[in-house]
C-alpha cells in the first residue's frame, strides 16, 4: 500500500477535544504528523482585554475545562501582582488545596480517558465515578462542578462551609485504595504493559529543548516542578515529593501521574490540617471598588486619565496538572488588563508531537497522545 495522509480529527475518538492530527502513514507505520489546531480558539486573551479583572475568571474556568481551578490560580496570582494586592493567608491555603484537588480530578480524568483509548472501558467509569466525588467537594464550597468562578483578586469568594474538611477527608480515604485498584488494572496487566512500554519516548534533553514540561518531562527523569523549584502560594510549607520516572515513555508518564495523585492527597491532607486550625478572612479587607466588584461602567478615556490607577506587570507560573503554565498580565491602569498572555503547557507539549509520534504505529497514537493529556481548551485558548 502506498503512503497516505489520514485525518485523525477534528472529530475522532483519539483527539479528546477538537483538533486534527494529520498523519502520513505507510501501512500501519507513521511517517509524519502535522497537528492542526484552532478549532476551539475562542480568543480568551482578546476577550480578557475587554473585561474587568474579576470577570476574566469566568474565562479561566473554560480555558482548560478539566483544570479550571489551576488556571484560576494562575491568573489570579498574576493579576494580584500586576495590581499590587496580596491575599490573606487562609485564602492562599484554600487556593493551594483547590489546585491540588484539581490536579487530582484532572489526573483521574486523564486516567479514565487514557485507559479508554486502549480499549478498556471499565477504568473510564471507575475514574469518572471517583472524579465525581471531587466535583462534589468543589460544588460544596464553590457552587459549581466544572466552572467554579471561585477565586477573586485579593482572595477567594467564600470560606469553606461547615463539614467540608470531614467530607474531604472521607473522599481522600476513598480515593487512596482506588489508586491501588487503578494500578492493578493497568500495571498489573501485561497487555497494558506491552501496549505502553517503550512508546513515545522523549529523552530529557529533548524535552527541555522542545519546551515539553509537566509529567512528560518528569517521566524522562527531570525533577523540574514549579511547586518545588519556585514555590508559589504556600507550597514551601507543605511536604511532598516530586514524582519522576526514567524511561520517558508512556508507562513513565502513567507512573508519574499516578505518583502525583498520591502526592496531591498528601498535600491536601496537610492543607486541611492547617485550615482546621487557622480561621481567618479569605478576602483582602480593602479592595478598591473599581476592581473588586461590579459597578456601572465608565469607560471614558477622560475619566481613566484623571484617576490614578496603579500600574504594573504580573508574571506567575504554576505547575498545572499538564505542566508549566505561565500568565503575564499587563496592567496599564484602568479597569481592564491591557494584555494577558498565557503559556499553556499542552501547547508546548503538543508542538513537539512529531518527535514522539514518528516511527510508531497507527495503533500507538491513542496511547501516546493519551499520555500527553491533551486539553484542547488550553491549547487554543
Amino acid at each position: 500500500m502506498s503512503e497516505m495522509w489520514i485525518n485523525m480529527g477534528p472529530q475522532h475518538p483519539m483527539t479528546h477535544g477538537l483538533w486534527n492530527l494529520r498523519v502520513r502513514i505507510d501501512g500501519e507505520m507513521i511517517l509524519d504528523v502535522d497537528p492542526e489546531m484552532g478549532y476551539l480558539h475562542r480568543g480568551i486573551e482578546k476577550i480578557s482585554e475587554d473585561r474587568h479583572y474579576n470577570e476574566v475568571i469566568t474565562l479561566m474556568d473554560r480555558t482548560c475545562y478539566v483544570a479550571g481551578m489551576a488556571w484560576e490560580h494562575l491568573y489570579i496570582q498574576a493579576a494580584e501582582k500586576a495590581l499590587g494586592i496580596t491575599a490573606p493567608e487562609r485564602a492562599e491555603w484554600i487556593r493551594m488545596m483547590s489546585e491540588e484537588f484539581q490536579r487530582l480530578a484532572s489526573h483521574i480524568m486523564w486516567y479514565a480517558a487514557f485507559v479508554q483509548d486502549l480499549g478498556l472501558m471499565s477504568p473510564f467509569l471507575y475514574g469518572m465515578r471517583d472524579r465525581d466525588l471531587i466535583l462534589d467537594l468543589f460544588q460544596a464550597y464553590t457552587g459549581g462542578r466544572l466552572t467554579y468562578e471561585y477565586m477573586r483578586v485579593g482572595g477567594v469568594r467564600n470560606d469553606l462551609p461547615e463539614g467540608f474538611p470531614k467530607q474531604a477527608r472521607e473522599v481522600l480515604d476513598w480515593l487512596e485504595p482506588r489508586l491501588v485498584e487503578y494500578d492493578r488494572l493497568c500495571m498489573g496487566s501485561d497487555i497494558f504493559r506491552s501496549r505502553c512500554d517503550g512508546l513515545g519516548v522523549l529523552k530529557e534533553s529533548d524535552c527541555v529543548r522542545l519546551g515539553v514540561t509537566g509529567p512528560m518531562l518528569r517521566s524522562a527523569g527531570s525533577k523540574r516542578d514549579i511547586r518545588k523549584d519556585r514555590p508559589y502560594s504556600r507550597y514551601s510549607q507543605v511536604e511532598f515529593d516530586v514524582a519522576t520516572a526514567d524511561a520517558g515513555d508512556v508507562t513513565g508518564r502513567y507512573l508519574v501521574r499516578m505518583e502525583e495523585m498520591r502526592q496531591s492527597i498528601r498535600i491536601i491532607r496537610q492543607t486541611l490540617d492547617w485550615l482546621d486550625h487557622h480561621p481567618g478572612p479569605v478576602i483582602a479587607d480593602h479592595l478598591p471598588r473599581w476592581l473588586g466588584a461590579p459597578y456601572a461602567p465608565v469607560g471614558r478615556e477622560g475619566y481613566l486619565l484623571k484617576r490614578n490607577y496603579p500600574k504594573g506587570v504580573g508574571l506567575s507560573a504554576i505547575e498545572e496538572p499538564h505542566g508549566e503554565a505561565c500568565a503575564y498580565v499587563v496592567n496599564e491602569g484602568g479597569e481592564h488588563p491591557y494584555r494577558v498572555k498565557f503559556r499553556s503547557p499542552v501547547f508546548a507539549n503538543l508542538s513537539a508531537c512529531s518527535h514522539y509520534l514518528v516511527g510508531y504505529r497507527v495503533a500507538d497514537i491513542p496511547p501516546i497522545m493519551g499520555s500527553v493529556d491533551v486539553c484542547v481548551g488550553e491549547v487554543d485558548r
Partner: protein
Amino acid sequence: MAADVEQKGRSKPENPFLIIGKPLATAARQFAKSLIRPSTIVYPFERLEDPKFREEVAIRSGRPIGVGQVWDNYRGVHALNVNTCISCNLCAFSCPDLCIDMVTVPGGDPKHPKKCPQIDYGKCSYCGFCSDACPEGCLSMTTRYELSTPKRAEMVYSPQKMFEIYQRKLPMNPIRLERPANEDSILLDVPLCIGCNACARDCPTECITMLDIPKVAPKPGEKPAKRIWKEPVINDSDCVRCGTCISVCPKECLFWGTHS
C-alpha cells in the same frame, strides 16, 4: 516503507505469556460489589437533591455515593424576589456575558419605572457574579438545573418567571459573597461639580441628596461659574455602591476612593 523513518518501540522483548490475573480479579471484585448496588444514580427517578433519596443512600461504607452529604449550593437557575428589587442595575453591570437585560415590571411609579433583571440562559455562564453583586439579596441562585427547552426564546427568563421560581422555595445557594469590610465609597471632586442633579436623579436607593452650598462669587476677571449651587451628599450606609452616579456624572467628578 520509507527508509528515512526509524522504526521505534520494538526493542523490548515481550513476555512469553501475558499475565492477566490481576486485572481480571479487580474487575471481578467490582462486579461482586456492584451486584448489591452500583454507584450510579438512576437520574430522572432518583435525584441527589431529593432528601428522601439522600437518606437512603447516605453513608454506607465502601460506597462512593453517600461518601458524604450533598450541599444545596449548586449555582443553577436564578430566583428573583421582585418585591425587594431596587433596580440598581448591579446584576446587569456585573454580568460578564451581557445576558441580563433590565426590563420594566409593573409596580413602579410612572416617572421612575421599576426595572428588574431578565436573564437569557442561552448566554448565561452561571458564574454567580450577579447574585454576588445583588445588594439586597433578592437575586439568588437555586439548585434547579433542568432548563432544556425546544425553543430558544424560552431560554429567556422574565422577572416574573424568576419570581415564580422564587415562590417555589427551592433550596437557594447559601453562599453569599463575603464583601470586603471597608469598601471604597463614592467621593466627590468638589471643584468639578456643577450641581446638575444627575446623580441624585438616577440613584436607585435615593441616598444622594443635593444640598445647597453658598454661592461663590466669581473672581475678578473671570466669567461667573455656570453651575447650580448645589452639591451631592452621599449617605454611605444606604449606598449600595452601584456606581450609577459615576457613570451618569457629566463632569466625571465622582470617583471611587476611601475617606481619609
